[in-house]
């Protein structure tokens, strides 16, 4: 453990409103919840912030509900709650698949959907699901609430439109039809970081999202368009390979990611016929 605790500060709001007003007054506050990413950074001594806002006890952000026709999942919903939710199982089973594979029981019990979004890793396992589901990120500040589609939420590697005085409060997933499909390719069978992760929906215009193949999670509009127009899968796979921009890193190679992403598209297509 290389993190230094002395000198860190933590604010503990008891409600969402209190949290938002604290953030308005002090934009240097960094929200924390399940800490499954943040405390890893603390351990490595790479935590840059020194002032934190503990959201863990704000239960109003743990609600899973139908809101109009959309599925609304509160930002503090843990993977465990997602896995156990009948509503999610019915509406967004691919999110359950993603949540199951995100880590062991200990991570399921603590990690939150909002945290996965806020952390913004291109390997975040729920992000392709949300992108393929056309999810909207609901953000709130002390003054206003705004909604941004997940596909427009990220502006670059670990960068997003979220402002320092805003919190992610929920994700809304509109109703849609079509077979859902999810596949994670990690460095081992459990407790792994994704080398390629794909979520897709087989609908008249297929929706395909990939993680770990670009600086952010991406949708593949050209590939989707080709499939919609009836292009053979092999051609769609070629388009996909051009549409992504994977890199070599310590976990995998650019070539592997490209090939596997293409293979996953083929598998998705074959399995959802």
């Amino acid at each position: 453990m290389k993190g230094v605790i002395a000198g860190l500060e933590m604010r503990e709001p008891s409600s969402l409103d209190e949290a938002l007003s604290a953030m308005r007054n002090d934009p240097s506050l960094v929200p924390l919840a399940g800490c499954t990413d943040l405390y890893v950074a603390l351990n490595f001594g790479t935590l840059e912030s020194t002032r934190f806002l503990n959201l863990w006890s704000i239960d109003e952000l743990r609600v899973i509900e139908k809101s109009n026709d959309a599925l609304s999942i509160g930002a503090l919903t843990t993977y465990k709650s997602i896995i156990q939710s009948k509503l999610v199982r019915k509406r967004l089973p691919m999110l359950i698949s993603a949540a199951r594979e995100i880590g062991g029981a200990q991570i399921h019990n603590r990690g939150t959907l909002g945290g996965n979004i806020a952390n913004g890793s291109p390997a975040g396992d729920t992000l392709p699901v949300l992108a393929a589901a056309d999810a909207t990120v609901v953000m709130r500040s002390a003054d206003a609430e705004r909604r941004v589609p997940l596909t427009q939420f990220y502006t670059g590697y670990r960068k997003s439109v979220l402002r320092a005085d805003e919190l992610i409060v929920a994700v809304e997933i509109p109703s849609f039809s079509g077979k859902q499909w999810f596949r994670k390719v990690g460095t081992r069978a459990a407790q792994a970081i994704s080398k390629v992760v794909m979520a897709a929906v087989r609908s008249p215009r297929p929706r395909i999202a990939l993680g770990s193949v670009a600086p952010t999670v991406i949708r593949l509009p050209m590939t989707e368009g080709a499939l919609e127009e009836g292009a053979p899968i092999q051609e769609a796979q070629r388009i996909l390979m051009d549409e992504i921009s994977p890199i070599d890193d310590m976990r995998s190679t650019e070539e592997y990611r490209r090939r596997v992403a293409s293979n996953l598209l083929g598998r998705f297509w074959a399995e959802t016929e």
Partner: protein
Amino acid sequence: MHASKIASPLAVGRNVPRKDSAEKVAGAAKYVDDLVFPGMLYGRTIRSTIPRGRIAATRLAFDQRGFVVADYRDIPGRNVVALIEDDQPFLAEREIRHTAEPILLLAHESRDLLLRAHVEIGYERENPVLDPESSPTAFKSLAIDKGEIEDGFSEADIIIEGEYRTGHQEHIYIETNGVIAVPQDGGITLLGSMQCPFYVHKALKSMLGWSDERIRVVQTETGGGFGGKEEYPSLIAGHAALLALKANRPVKIVYDRAEDMIATTKRHPAIVRHRTGVKRDGRLTAMDIDIVMDAGAYVTLSPVVLSRGAIHAAGPYRCDHVRVRGRAMMTNTPPNGAFRGFGAPQTQFAVEVHMERIAETLGIDPVKLRETNAFRPGDTTSTGQILGEDCSALDVLRRAVRRSGFRTRQRRYAGTNRGIGLALFYHGSGFTGGGEVRLASKASLGLTERGVQILVASTEIGQGTRTMHAQIVADALGVPFDDVYPVQPDTSNVPDSGPTVASRTCMVVGRILQQCAEEMKTRLGGMTPREFFAAHGPMIVTSEYEGPSGIKWDDSTYRGDAYSTYAWACDVAEVEINPDTFEVRPLKLTCVHDIGKAIHPVLVAGQIEGGTAQGIGYALIEQVVMREGSMANAQLTNYTIPTTLDTPPIDVVIVENPSRYGPHGAKGVGELPIDGPAPAIVNAVRSIGIDLREIPAVPEIVMKAIDLGKGKTDARHVPL
């Protein structure tokens, strides 16, 4: 309690309760990081951030109040970690040979202030040597010659060549390295996680220039070793001692996971090249083997690792003409060191995958090829050792083939994305050649009020030393298992039983204890230990290792009896390859191991299951990514070891073909299980039609192997 005259049931061969279970399951066992001493400081090691160069300047860029700072000038004796060669300093003076080399030590009572302290080191950089094959420095070269290699090649119908590569492997004991140094009464006590208290004692004596009795080394409960706590703890103990003596306060140094991975030893990567002459019927006529191991920046144990690797390099096969050449090359990477298997996993991976390729080339069934060539009693090894009746190569092979349903599955998997493969392998027990005689290990038994006390330096690191030794002693004395109890290895209290390495703790130290017990029994003269104690008070019996008569070994020519016995095994692996992701998933491993005698079957199965899982990781997912001589993925998130979901069912069969030399016929078991899984798994992948010759066979490597195979016109069917 009345002294019982009723014979207790024998302990050996039974699954008696582990001596340390109760404390471990209760969370009460004390590991080094669980200990706190009054006035204790925390220590931190400042390390080099370049792979090669010279230190130009050092600046302490922090408020030094309350800090203790030590560098090489604080070393009163010799600044070398005494082991084989005196080349590795405790603290760098000018020259830097690898990243993460220790330069400076800090201690403070506040961990936060310690972590915040910033030290600037300026360097004059030099170009590092990172490729062992182009390194100008060989730490060790050796040659094994049997027969005349050219005669063997002239007898051959076909010559088959191949190159096989194995990567680094990190031990990942779940408890990281750590030591506490406590200065007291003009001496110093070192408590820590370690395999070899007397190695630490020797290294500290040389570093401090002190006499034996001023240094006391105590092993604390140790959370796994696997070789990673054989030589490395000497370095940490030296650092903790320097800080503690300068501060005149206890100092604790416990590495976090990242430091443990970046700084400590790993398994030597190897490149092994085979050139083999064979007859059309599969008989081997000549085996020409070249081994290059990457030793890292200092010698540490590399000569011995290379030696064991070379001795096992020709596999458990009869061949009249064998030539082995081995080199351990210096590179500017952290020194590689002891790791379960000690060179043999690398060379046996190579020979077993090569045997598979020979079978493929000749169109002979892989089992048949191995049956033709497997050692039988009376055969001679590459060093000229004549094998006795304790050779079980053929037996374990046939049992493993039957047990796994090899033939049926081979047929069932044909043309699918599943495959089955096997590896036949062996492992010499104890130190090589005359090593055990030179060590002259000692063990003692003490008669106390409580019963019979085992006094050995052999450490419990999870493998079951305490329990297995007590079983052997209980039966030899004819007393109940519960009356025999182990003590904590403490150099001030136990004799030097040699290091806890080399699969020797049962076979060698267990045998010495058996001798002690036999002598004690004679001295008891028919009385029970309690009766004797009541009448005469305490008694101590000490015995020393006696080399088996008739064992001959010449270290200069590498001729003779390399080991007094070998353990034999055959692993069968079944795998499935994912055609989309190129991931190889092991479905099942069948492990048939002849270990002479299972003193405690559950402990033996534990060694085989655990070693097999570690071997599966070595084969498939454990990849040390080195960048500019430094481990780039030094986190458990990125260096992945097998989880429950990566580990398939492991079917263990224990075979007991006794050795004349071990207690109750026992042979070594600690290392054997790590030799087989990698070649068995790779051979299973090969059976699918993928020309794989390298580990770790991560999906990226498998993908390349498939691509290369598809480019060849003679490539067999790849159902992908």
